């Protein structure tokens, strides 16, 4: 019987390929969430159940045209500019089915800086960690071959430096 229980434990451990990341909430943790002017309802309603710190670029905090898709473990908020759209995602889920003995994985794990500005498939993005979880801020352009916002990191970098926490709850 003990053997059976032990076996079941081992099976469950091997099949546990995903989970929820612990969040190291800042202390005091809600100071930045009380603006003098309330944020638009589309934002506050959209993230009311989100259990991770929600960051967006400060210049878009009162943009009523933002689009919010969120649940308790992740959020994606999009903002629309002329000829481009900005997206920020925070996600506290993870998957672990990656071969940890792989050379590239090991190299990546050693080398990853706290924030990386990346030229991805026709988008420019900033990939960063806060509170132990991963966030991605990106811009996609209607004309990715010519639009500098999607070819050079300056625009995304300027958005990244102006991120503010607008919600999320422990």
């Amino acid at each position: 019987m003990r053997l059976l229980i032990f076996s079941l434990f081992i099976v469950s451990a091997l099949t546990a390929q995903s989970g929820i990341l612990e969040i190291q909430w800042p202390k005091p943790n809600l100071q930045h969430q009380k603006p003098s002017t309330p944020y638009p309802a589309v934002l506050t309603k959209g993230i009311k159940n989100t259990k991770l710190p929600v960051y967006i670029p400060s210049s878009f905090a009162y943009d009523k045209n933002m689009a919010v898709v969120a649940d308790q473990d992740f959020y994606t908020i999009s903002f629309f500019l002329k000829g481009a759209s900005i997206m920020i995602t925070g996600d506290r889920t993870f998957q672990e089915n990656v071969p940890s003995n792989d050379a590239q994985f090991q190299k990546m794990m050693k080398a990853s800086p706290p924030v990386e500005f990346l030229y991805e498939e026709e988008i420019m993005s900033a990939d960063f960690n806060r509170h132990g979880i991963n966030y991605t801020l990106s811009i996609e352009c209607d004309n990715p071959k010519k639009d500098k916002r999607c070819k050079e990191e300056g625009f995304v970098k300027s958005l990244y430096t102006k991120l503010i926490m607008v919600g999320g709850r422990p």
Partner: protein
Amino acid sequence: MKYFLTLVLLLLLNSCASKPPIASEAQTWKGKGFTYYPAGQLKPSNSGDGRYGDNYIYAPNIRFPLAYAPAFINSQVYGIGGQFGPRGSLCDQRNYQYPWKDNYCEKRTRSMPLCPAGAGHQGVDIRARNCQNNKHYAVAVEEGVITYIGSYSVKLRGKTGRTYRYLHLNSRSIQVHRGQRVWRGQKIGLVSDNMGKTKTSIHLHFDIKQTIRMGNRSKSIYIPPYTSLVDAYKRLLKGKP
């Protein structure tokens, strides 16, 4: 005796958990004439270095992202009519033939820490059954929610937490809206040559992003999709997508 049995059981489980499900298969599959080159074996050889030997299925049990077979994974850039490929038409019939050729990590300037070169293609390019524009539907690979719709891209966050990106769909053909819950196999949009204000070849760029835990932090990475797609395509051919 008990300890011996435990040890045997552990070894057995470990071998089941770590063995790549398609590692033992050769380049052909006995069914519907489908053949494919191994993961990471990029064709032509000057198109870059892939993750050769990595047969791990990173996104198990996803549905194939096109509604119907046949479909063809091969290079848009190094294929016939491509920027660095042999002269000819992008619609050349030879671009619409097996075997499949992995093109994850194909030479690009995009940052890709998982590629041997440190840069490369972040997903794979898939041609539908023929070269008709706006004819073939891309579908949801798993149940989830649509998180983003851009001028030429759609993002689906699956229940597993992975994010699937579909590029070059005809923006006027999109069948879903932001925030919509979708079921596995639900139509998303038509494969086209759309890339915003510029054009590309008629194909679907498909990539998969997932978060991995790294000590006390995490990282979002584009995982190799080819083996997952080979697996999904076999199910599609069997009529069990």
